[in-house]
């Protein structure tokens, strides 16, 4: 069994089916990217995985254990293994950078404050934000906030990290610094599920790419297959449109 197994997941907002029978898996340390047009369900799939949007059918297994999205205990357990970084960073506006990164380890995981701060400073250094430890989010650029958000997610020591269009809200100049940060995570044994429109980046870092359309996974394969010789015509359409830009 794979580290992360998504089996026949469906989800709907009211009558609108956003995910239909999505099946996907990822091994430990794998980088799986989701591509596809807007509204194809990529972000919803991440929200379902982390338990923000309830699935209407199907199952998710992590390390062989089934996740029960109706049980608070199971969700808590799940979120101990999995973290997410959002498009809009969502740093806590009332806390400085250091506190944003240490709050979950200190208040939720009950780690000693000093230990958590040492680790947080290490993570901030890794994302190149150690000098801004005392700054508040509204004093930072989007790219800087996003790197702090990545450090905050890493502070919970996730085995699986979900990245939801983390560069979509950034200036082109800031995209690179965030992508560099993500690239540095790909060799650390963390399973990454990436939703991105940065095709060159997806092609470079992914071990596998899943093409989604209208709530379904159309095709999954290594980046070379998806970008060079897609099997499905829908994938071919999408990729050729994106790459011709």
């Amino acid at each position, binding site marked *: 069994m794979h580290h992360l197994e998504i089996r026949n997941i469906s989800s709907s907002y009211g009558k609108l089916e956003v995910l239909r029978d999505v099946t996907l898996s990822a091994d430990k340390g794998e980088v799986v990217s989701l591509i596809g047009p807007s509204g194809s369900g990529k972000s919803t799939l991440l929200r379902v995985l982390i338990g*923000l949007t309830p699935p209407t059918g199907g199952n998710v297994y992590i390390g062989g254990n089934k996740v029960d999205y109706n049980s608070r205990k199971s969700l808590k357990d799940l*979120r101990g293994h999995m973290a997410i970084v959002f498009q809009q960073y969502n740093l806590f*506006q009332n806390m400085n950078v250091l506190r944003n990164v240490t709050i*979950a380890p200190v208040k939720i995981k009950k780690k000693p404050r000093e230990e958590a701060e040492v680790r947080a400073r290490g993570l901030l250094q890794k994302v190149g934000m150690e000098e801004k430890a005392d700054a*508040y989010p509204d004093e930072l650029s989007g790219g800087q906030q996003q790197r702090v958000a990545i450090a*905050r997610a890493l502070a919970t020591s996730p085995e699986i990290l979900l990245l939801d269009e983390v560069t979509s809200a950034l200036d082109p100049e800031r995209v690179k610094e965030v992508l560099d940060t993500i690239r540095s995570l790909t060799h650390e044994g963390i399973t990454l599920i990436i939703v991105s429109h940065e095709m060159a980046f997806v092609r470079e870092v992914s071990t596998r790419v899943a093409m989604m359309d209208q709530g379904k996974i159309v095709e999954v394969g290594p980046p070379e297959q998806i970008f060079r010789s897609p099997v499905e015509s829908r994938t071919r359409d999408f990729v050729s449109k994106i790459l011709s830009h």
Partner: protein
Amino acid sequence: MFERLVTEAPLFFNYHNMVFIGQAMARTLGMTLIGCGVGFVFGMLIAVVRQTTSSLLWPVRLVVISYVEFFRRIPFLVILFIVLFVIEPLMPGTSLFGIATVSVCLLSTAFLSEIIRSGLESVPRAQVETAQILNFNVLQTLMMVVLPQSWRVILPPAAAFIVMFIKDTSLASQLGVIELTFAGKMLINRGFSPILGFGAILVCYFALSYPLSRFAAYLERRLAPS
């Protein structure tokens, strides 16, 4: 008229009258602060209950929403009489001040809960979701993420409401509570000029509400984002 004021003033500003006005001022302030203080606590509870989504809690939500919608729509004077006629037979001997204070609590709970609710709702949903996925429980999310970000939305209208209520407590004079307005009336009935009597009361109302407005403005500045 001016001559009358000059001759009356030394008589008016005597020790006895000053103590009398001072006590009335304390009652006005007491009704307002106790009433709004209690109202703030219960208003907060109601606002938090209304944020819950659990289907098990819907009867509780229905009760608090009905409470808020009901009490926001009755005049304070009517609430005063309702409370008087409910409490009087149940607990005879309750002071009029107590009855008026309970009335303030009832009304301020309803209004402050709405002010607090709009403050809580001003915090983006994504902040709450982020707290959830970091495994914060409901109370931790409220105390560490939502409330610290909503004070600056809550405080200005809450302070304005309390300042307004200092003035509205004058309606309790209809019940016979010797607060500022009633005290002014009594002084005039003792033969003092209305200009002196109500002039003094006016100064007292100003002295109560102005510092509170300044304090609120100060808090607002301090809580503004850096």
